[in-house]
């Protein structure tokens, strides 16, 4: 059983180490052959990843971010640009940081991989 929580809080609680060095130009994608199994209900999407044996739960926001990666490989900057088009606005600083953290989380979870 992995413990993201312990990795997360071993350092300073206010800093997420995984996002500090996150390369915004690095292109990520969802591998076609990941074999992900989805169950989607009213307000969340739940995915089982047979490669890791982990079950991940995504709310609608996170699900859409992953869906953008499923549409095609892209960098973080490209993701943010597409997200801006969806909401017809530039995301504020908090939302941008949340998106970066989520993408870092996808990377940690193994849902996306760099090309």
């Amino acid at each position: 059983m992995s413990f993201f929580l312990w990795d997360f809080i071993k350092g300073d609680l206010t800093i997420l180490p995984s996002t500090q060095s996150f390369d915004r130009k690095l292109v990520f994608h969802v591998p076609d052959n990941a074999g992900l199994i989805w169950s989607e209900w009213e307000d969340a999407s739940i995915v089982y990843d047979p490669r890791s044996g982990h079950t991940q739960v995504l709310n609608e926001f996170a699900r859409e971010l992953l869906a953008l990666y499923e549409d095609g490989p892209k960098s973080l900057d490209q993701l943010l640009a597409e997200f801006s088009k969806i909401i017809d606005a530039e995301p504020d600083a908090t939302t941008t940081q949340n998106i970066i953290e989520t993408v870092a989380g996808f990377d940690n979870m193994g849902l996306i991989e760099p090309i």
Partner: protein
Amino acid sequence: MTEVNNTDKKNEVTSGATLGKRLHRRSLLKAGAIAAPVALTLHGGVPLAHADSAGLCVINLMNIANNPADNRAAMLQVPIKGGQVAAPKNGTHKFELLPEDLANDYPPGTQLQPFDASNLNHWEFIKDPLNQRFGFSCVNSIEFNYRINGNNGWGNGDQPAPGGSLPNNNAENGPNGNPN
């Protein structure tokens, strides 16, 4: 022999995914109905906890929890009530209630989650870990990798979002019905 890298595997959906659903999702985002993305790793319960719920008196959980060399220790949190833990009294077959104790491998400042099942509601596990409530118990082992506060779109299903339900969704995702 099982093939590990099965390049024939495709991603699969067991229920609910349609183009219409994606359009609906995008409309929620555009409306600002969901303020933050949330992605969690969901784990099942642990056998020690399941057996424990039936009999703390026969399983020496505290010794396991306080022994970092025991690989079960990291997944344990001894159910306690009112900030106390039931522990066997050394040398006897009696039990005593002691103040909260910490497993040696927990980070400093960790507090054991008080376990009062009579007040448990289904959104208690969505908690802000920076408030020292990690939402991690030996039965509920959902772990966090983010702050989770504000409206995340997870309500109890009694109202659709967005619209008038927005403040209610926010309330539903706070402890005891209070907004985060």
